[in-house]
């Protein structure tokens, strides 16, 4: 429903005046992020140009928001409560579509540049994410869980929202930096750019993809642990035995 609405909103002005819609030419500093032994996180530069029809920038201010979004997955969120003096997991809710990573940067605070309807349609902002919670009927309780999930991910650095960090030059060039923590899940990420004017999204582009993956030794270890579990376990035992034995041997000579 939301998607259909978004499509309609997007197509209507285009059909009306196809020529007057600006075009976005977005790009990112890295199409591939390789996780290797020294990986401590990454900084991604999202940048691009806005091409206006007939090369004329419109009067007034334009705003840009950029979003980097990881693959969605289903998760269980558990909540600890104090029961008989001990904090234990007491309640839980399932979410069917939580992005593994979500970062949004905008040229001004989102509240000031888009109305709440537009923000909801394009899922702009952490409080607008459609996480598809299930199981909870009570709206207040559902909100508590959604807030808890967003807060947890924000403090882990996997959800980010920054205002005023998209720089726009001459209404034509834009750029923003987004930080990616070392605990980022692997997968195919989508970089989305939205051009916003008068509270509405004029044009959006989500054709840029970023691949985050482990390479080299890190990839090997992960594949071994997942797919060749017996061999991996035997290797771990062997390495541990050899290291322990070798150290004992060396120290006896000293």
């Amino acid at each position, binding site marked *: 429903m939301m998607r259909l609405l978004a499509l309609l909103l997007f197509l209507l002005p285009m059909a009306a005046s196809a020529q007057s819609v600006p075009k976005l030419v977005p790009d990112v500093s890295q199409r591939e992020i390789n996780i290797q032994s020294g990986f401590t996180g990454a900084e991604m530069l999202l940048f691009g140009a806005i091409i206006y029809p007939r090369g004329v920038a419109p009067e007034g201010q334009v705003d840009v928001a950029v979003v980097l979004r990881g693959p969605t997955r289903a998760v*269980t969120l558990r909540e600890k409560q104090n029961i008989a003096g*001990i*904090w*234990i997991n007491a309640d839980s809710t399932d979410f069917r579509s939580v992005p593994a990573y979500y970062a949004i940067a905008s040229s001004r605070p989102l509240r000031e540049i888009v109305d709440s309807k537009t923000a909801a349609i394009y899922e702009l902002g952490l409080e607008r994410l459609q996480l598809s919670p299930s199981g909870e009927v009570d709206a207040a309780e559902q909100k508590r869980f959604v807030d808890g999930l967003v807060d947890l991910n924000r403090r882990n650095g996997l959800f980010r929202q920054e205002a005023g960090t998209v720089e726009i030059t001459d209404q034509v060039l834009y750029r923003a930096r987004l930080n990616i923590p070392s605990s980022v899940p692997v997968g195919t990420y989508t970089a989305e750019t939205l051009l916003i004017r008068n509270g509405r999204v004029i044009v959006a582009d989500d054709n840029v993809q970023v691949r985050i993956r482990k390479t080299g030794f890190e990839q090997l270890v992960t594949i071994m642990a997942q797919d060749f579990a017996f061999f991996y376990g035997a290797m771990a035992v062997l390495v*541990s*035995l050899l*290291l*322990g034995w070798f*150290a004992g041997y060396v*120290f006896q000579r000293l």
Partner: protein
Amino acid sequence: MDIYLPIANLSVNALVIILLGGGVGVLSGMFGVGGGFLTTPLLIFYGIPPAVAAASASTQVTGASVSGVFAHMNRGGVDFQMGAVLVFGGIFGTAAGAAIFEILEALGQIDTVINILYVVMLGGIGGLMAKESLTSVSASRAGKPVPAAKRRHHPLVANLPMRWRFYRSGLYISPLAPLILGFITGIMTMLLGVGGGFIMVPAMLYLLGMGAQVVVGTSLFQILFVTMASTMMHSLTTKAVDIVLAVFLLIGSVIGAQIGARLAQRMRPDYLRLFLAVIVLLVAIRMALGLGWRPDEIYTLQAL
């Protein structure tokens, strides 16, 4: 120096991990325990996911106990027959532990159970050790000879059917007793990432009544094989063994253990035991407080 842990999926400071392993290694060298009971909670405090911490700590204990087993073997301090029975029970224990781990994880209660087990076990064992070592310290201070502990096995053990002779341990008891003991320690190894030496040694002395000269060696022998089984079991079920983490822990702990062993020679054994008891109790108290304090994170995520 930052290093990315491929299974834990995060980057840590390698120096911190080596120092952590080293610190635990010093203690394990001094007291002849594997040190898993310190490694796992410290790793969790540092931010490593609990399953990865427990799995990798048990891999590390394997390496930390190898040279000890050889040393005790050379001077005849290992009762292989007793060890084999313990290991046999221990392997079944790790399998049972894996099943328990899976059930608790599905229920979302694994962390709480791990914490409670730590508090109960460390508190109990630490309390016993503190009491025993205080008695012996105060006795030696007063100039009296330390009252020798009477060596006999627990009545429960004596009542078990079917008896075997364990020559090196100087025992004629039912193999069911060490089998059950091994089984329980196997479960602990799987859940907590501990070798179980701190349960095994008192249990051998006070429940089975084994001869003191083979207790530590046989316990190490059992720890070596059961932590190997537990690493395999974790690799096959939880897939949480981080070999990079285990190697860095080992580098620290094997060096620390040698330093600890040298330090131990300069200290009086009863003071050493009292010191260990204090450390064990401190960890237990910290974990108990952790259960009651409001945790930093009320919410936890688990992928479906």
